């Protein structure tokens, strides 16, 4: 955990939305380094821009100003298609509402990101089974999302996020829709991913209990990053 090389370097990042003629600044001049292997919790009130920042880091959205360097690539310079390819290889996503494809089985949902790779069917099977056993659902491979509980669905989503072995895991309120017990399981799982597998995780949450699981915490308010809130646990 003492790896201090930053894997994400955000410099003077700004983003605003236009609503009619009005320009609403959402993120203002954000500068932030995230070290490899870090488990960062991003907190802040609703509407403060957490999701927007996370989406920018994950290459889902384009910034107005500033740069985001992930590994050795400045993703603010990539085109839409380059960004899609980059995401496929470098980022794993965990959403609040799991976002599994309802007509695909757990196995197929996890296999989905691998379809874009040139792995053989056999290799894909190995990866999917490994990822599902990591989240403890190897016996639910053939279940469809509707046959799984919320917590189980989120664990399948986590398996889908890690199956490509991405540089970065991003999670937007991963426990926001779960009961306390399931949330606990999911958080434990993420903690393990960070501690045992050395994954770099950025998690947006406004649940202090969730934030406590992380190794560091940043606080965002009205689009401005509060600098002195970093806490080491």
């Amino acid at each position, binding site marked *: 955990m003492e790896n201090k090389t930053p894997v994400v370097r955000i410099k003077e990042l700004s983003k605003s939305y236009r609503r009619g003629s009005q320009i609403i600044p959402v993120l203002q001049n954000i500068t932030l380094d995230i070290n490899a292997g870090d488990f960062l919790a991003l907190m802040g009130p609703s509407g403060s821009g957490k*999701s*927007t920042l996370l*989406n920018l880091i*994950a290459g*889902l*959205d384009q910034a107005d100003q500033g740069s985001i360097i992930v590994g050795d690539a400045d993703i603010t310079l990539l085109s839409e*298609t380059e960004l*899609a*390819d*980059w*995401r*496929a*290889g470098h980022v794993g*996503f965990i*959403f609040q509402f799991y*976002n599994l*494809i309802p*007509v*695909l089985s757990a196995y*197929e949902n996890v*296999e*989905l*990101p691998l*379809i*874009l790779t040139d792995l053989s069917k056999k290799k894909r099977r190995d990866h999917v089974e490994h990822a599902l056993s990591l989240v403890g659902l190897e016996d639910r491979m053939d279940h469809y999302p509707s046959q799984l509980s919320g917590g189980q669905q989120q664990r399948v989503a986590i398996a889908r996020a890690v199956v490509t072995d991405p540089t970065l895991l991003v999670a937007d309120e991963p426990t926001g829709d779960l009961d306390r017990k399931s949330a606990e399981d999911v958080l434990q799982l993420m903690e393990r991913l960070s501690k045992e597998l050395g994954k770099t995780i950025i998690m947006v949450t406004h649940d202090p209990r969730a934030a406590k699981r992380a190794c560091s915490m940043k606080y965002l308010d009205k689009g401005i990053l509060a600098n002195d809130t970093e806490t080491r646990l």
Partner: protein
Amino acid sequence: MILKLVFKNAFRQKLRAALTILGMCIVILAFGMLRTVISAWYAGVAASSANRLVTRNAISLIFSLPISYKEKIRSVNGVNIVSYGNWFGGVYIEEKNFFANFAVEPVTYLNLYPEFILSEEQKTAFFRDRKSCVAGQKLAKRFGWKINDSITLKGTIFPGNWEFVLRGIYDGRDETIDETQFFFHWDYLNETVKKSAPRRADMVGFYMIGIAKADSAASIAQTVDGLFKNSYAETLTETEKAFQMSFVSFSEAILTAIRLVSFMVIVIIMAVVANTMAMSVRERMREYAVFKTLGFGAFHILGLILGESLVITSVGGTIGIALTFPVVKAFGKAVSNWIPVFIVEPETIYMDIAAILMVGVVAAIIPSWRAVTMRIADGLRSIG
């Protein structure tokens, strides 16, 4: 797996998918029926030979031509056979039993129509007996006629009761050939008319000309008409196709309307399928956003949506095509007295397939465009 996804997506909203497929099926069936009606109308035109010309009175079909023209026409270069005849217009028992009946010169007529297939014995029997007649297989079946049956037609243009003996039943060479015709010896007609109405004798309604080379049709027609220019009965000679066309063109307006309706039903189903696709895609925006998040590109999204649209149109369309055959057959049977050739043409099936593909593609355009251009962040936010 992508293929499985396409199929599963297509049938996710079971009722909606079923209704859309039903609509597609009915539209393709209706389209096939309408196209078949149109091609049935043109059956005479389609079956006409490029090697046959028809000569008739230049004023109108109801005026006739002297029999003496026969030799002059035969002398024209490039003319192989000359036959002739009259529209007889006889009624079998009742008006409603309508069928086409002609008085023709038997030998030349059958030479000109090799598509009417008759056994050698029947042919000889027909040629030998002056009061004999030949009927198409469908017509004979309709009235239960057998060889050597005697048949009485009531004359309308040529009054009186006319007795014939059925000496031949012809088969069409293929299913596009009209098997409901009835013809008999022109000589029999002419001799009877000679006695009852001598002024109407030795006149024919039309000449049928067999020519050696189809591409000399125009010049031969011109030469023939030139022969009788400034005579008291000028002629109009045209290809059999053009002659048949002149019957169809009476009803051209109706055919245009049918054609228009056949395309309109396609446009309607296009709107219906497009609506189904728009609803499905809107409900699944979030899923497409997830696909994009995972790195799937525009082509994948397009493939998913287009594939789904094509699954719906092809399933419905294929059932529609499959139903077209029995329905056309049943319908054809019901109307066979009025429409002699009622069959599904290969072109109709090609047009069906083109319609299926076109509807599928058109219906997918707007939803695909929406899904492809949607911003991921917005898509993830949308309620699915």
